[in-house]
C-alpha cells in the first residue's frame, strides 16, 4: 500500500509519503475544500430556521431534504462543517501548542520544573475529561464556538506534553546533542535548534490525535445540548434532530448527513495519523 513518490522534498521526504497518508490528506482536503468553497455557493440564509418548507425528503429543490424546523439540509451541512472544523482546529492548536511548550520545558530542564509539569499533567490525565467538560459547559452562560474550543483545549494538552517530554528526554541522550555542546551551542539554542526539529514529527502526529479527540468531545457536548445552541455545527444538528425525534419520525435525511460527514472527518484524520507515522519513522516503511 505504500506508494513511493519521488518528489524533491527535503530530508528525503519524497520516498516516504505513503498511500495511507495521501488518502487521509485527500479526504481531509475534500472536506476542507467544500467547507471553504461551499459557503460561497450556498446561501447561509437557507440554513436558518424557517427558510424553507420543512420535513421535505431529499429531491428536487432540496438535494438533502429539509429538517423539521425548515432548514435546507445541504445548506446546513455546508455551513455547519466549517464551524465544527474550526472549533476542532482551534482546540487542537491550543492543546498541542500548550502541550508542546510544556513538554519541551519539562524534558529539557528537568528538576522541579519537570516535576511540577509532570504531576499536573499526569493528574489531569486521570480525570474523566467529559465529566469536567460537561460541568464547565453547563455553567457557562454565553457559550460560543470559540469558547467551546477553548474549554475543550484546556483538557487536551496533557497527552502531547507527555509525548513531547519523553521524546526530548530520549533525544538528549543522542550523540549529536553532545556534538552541539562542543560546537559551542548554549542550552536554549540546543533545545530549539537541535532538539525541536526532531520532536516536530511527534508534535504533528499529536496534533492530529488531539484535534480528533477535541472534535469528538465538542460534538459530544453539543449533542447533549451543551453547545452554542444558536450556531450551526454538526453536533448541534444531531441535537436538534434528537430533540425533534427525527429517528422515530423517519427523517433519516436529518440525522444521516451529519453522521456521514463526521465519519469522513474521522477517517481522514485517522488515515493521516497512521500515514504520518510511516512518514515520521522511515523504518516502518520499506526502504527502496
Amino acid at each position, binding site marked *: 500500500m505504500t506508494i513511493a513518490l519521488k518528489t524533491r522534498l527535503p*530530508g*528525503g521526504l519524497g520516498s516516504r509519503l505513503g498511500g495511507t497518508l495521501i488518502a487521509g490528506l485527500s479526504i481531509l482536503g475534500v472536506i476542507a475544500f467544500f467547507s471553504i468553497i461551499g459557503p460561497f455557493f450556498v446561501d447561509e440564509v437557507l440554513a436558518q430556521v424557517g427558510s424553507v418548507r420543512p420535513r421535505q425528503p431529499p429531491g428536487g429543490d432540496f438535494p438533502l431534504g429539509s429538517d423539521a424546523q425548515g432548514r435546507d439540509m445541504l445548506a446546513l451541512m455546508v455551513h455547519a462543517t466549517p464551524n465544527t472544523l474550526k472549533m476542532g482546529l482551534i482546540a487542537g492548536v491550543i492543546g498541542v501548542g500548550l502541550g508542546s511548550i510544556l513538554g519541551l520545558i519539562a524534558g529539557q530542564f528537568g528538576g522541579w520544573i519537570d516535576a511540577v509539569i509532570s504531576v499536573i499533567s499526569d493528574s489531569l490525565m486521570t480525570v474523566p475529561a467529559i465529566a469536567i467538560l460537561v460541568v464547565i459547559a453547563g455553567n457557562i452562560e454565553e457559550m460560543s464556538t470559540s469558547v467551546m474550543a477553548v474549554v475543550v483545549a484546556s483538557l487536551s494538552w496533557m497527552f502531547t506534553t507527555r509525548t513531547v517530554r519523553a521524546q526530548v528526554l530520549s533525544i538528549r541522550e*543522542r*550523540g*549529536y546533542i*553532545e*556534538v*552541539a555542546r*562542543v*560546537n*559551542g*551551542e548554549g542550552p536554549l539554542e540546543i533545545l530549539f535548534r*537541535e532538539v525541536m*526539529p*526532531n520532536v516536530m514529527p511527534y508534535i504533528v502526529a499529536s496534533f492530529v490525535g488531539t484535534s480528533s479527540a477535541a472534535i469528538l468531545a465538542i460534538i459530544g457536548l453539543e449533542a447533549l445540548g451543551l453547545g452554542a445552541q444558536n450556531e450551526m455545527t454538526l453536533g448541534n444538528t444531531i441535537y436538534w434532530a434528537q430533540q425533534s425525534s427525527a429517528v422515530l419520525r423517519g427523517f433519516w435525511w436529518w440525522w444521516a448527513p451529519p453522521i456521514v460527514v463526521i465519519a469522513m472527518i474521522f477517517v481522514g484524520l485517522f488515515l493521516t495519523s497512521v500515514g504520518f507515522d510511516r512518514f515520521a519513522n522511515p523504518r516502518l516503511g520499506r526502504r527502496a
Partner: protein
Amino acid sequence: MTPLIELRGVKRTYGAFTALDTLSLSVPDRAATIAIAGESGSGKTTLARILLGFIEPTEGQVFYRGKDIATMSAAEKFTFRREVQPIFQDPFDVFNPFYRIDHVLEMPLYRFGLAKTRAEARPLIEDALSRVGLRPQDTLGRFPHELSGGQRQRIMVARAVLLRPRLIVADEPVSMVDASLRATILDEIRDLNRTLGIAFVYITHDLTTAFQICDDIVVLYQGKVAEAGAVECVIGAPRHPYSQLLVSSIPLPDLSRRWGDDEMQAAPEQGDRPSAGCRFAPRCPHAMDQCWRVDPAHTRPDPDRLIACHLDREGAKLPGADIAQVFQSRNNAAQSMKGTAT
C-alpha cells in the same frame, strides 16, 4: 615547557566504584600522539571525558596550559572548549538527522567566531574536508543518511580540525567504521598531527593501530595504569602480564604464531574486582602470593617505561603513577635526536 594538558593525581569514583585510579599524566605542548588502551571497563572512556572537561575528577586537578580547569573564567573555558575537540565513536549518532551535514560544520565556526557568514565559512569547511580526503561536492548539501559510515566519520574528523584545536581526543574513532576504511582514516588523523601540529589522544582497544599512529601509550586495566611508555617498548616488548596478554591476542596473519584452541584464562565476571591486591591477579599466569595481598605501586624499570607489577623488583619507584616522567624523557630524547624513525 608548560604541558598542554596535565592531570595531577586525578582519580574518579562513582560511589564505591573506582572508574579511574590515581594517576598523573601530561600531554606535552608539541604535537604528541598518545594512545590509551584497554578493554571495556578499563576506565579509558572516563579518562577521555576528564581530558575533554566533560566530567570532573573526584580527586586531583586538571590543568590546561597551566590553568586549573575548575577555576577557569568563562572566557578561558570557552578557549579551552575550542582548543580541545573530541571525535566520537559512533558515526551514526553524532549527526542531527534533521539537518544537512553542513550544519555540524558551520555551527562551530559561527559559535567560536571563526566565520560570520556562510560565505566566510565555506572556504574553511572545504579546506577541512579536503584534509580528510573528502570532496566538498560529494558531501556538502547532503543529509547524513545519504552518506556512508566512513564518510560520516571523516566529516567528524573535519569538524574537529576546523577549529584548529591544539588537542583532539579521539574515542575509538574507527571501531564502528568499515574495516577497509579504518587504516585510511587513521592515517589521515596522523597526517593532521604532522601537518597541523595537533596533538591527539587516541583511545582504543586495538593495539595494532595504536602502535602505528602513536608514539606513547598508556595501558589501563580496571581503572589503573598497568603499563605506560613508548609504543616500541610497551607493545614491542611488553612486560606487564596484561600487556603481554593484549599483545598476544592480536590476530596476526602469521602462521608461526597461531593461537591454537587452548583454554585461556577466563575473563572476570562483570564488575568483579578483587578487594585487595593486584587487580589482574585472577587472570595472571605469574600471580605470586604477594599479588593477592598488595596492590603493586608504579615503578620505572626502563627510562621509557612505567609499570605496576610485582614482577619488577628493580625499577625505581614512581608514586602516583606519574606518567609525565616517562613521556617527557622520551620527548627530550626525541628532541635531541631530531626526528624518529617512521
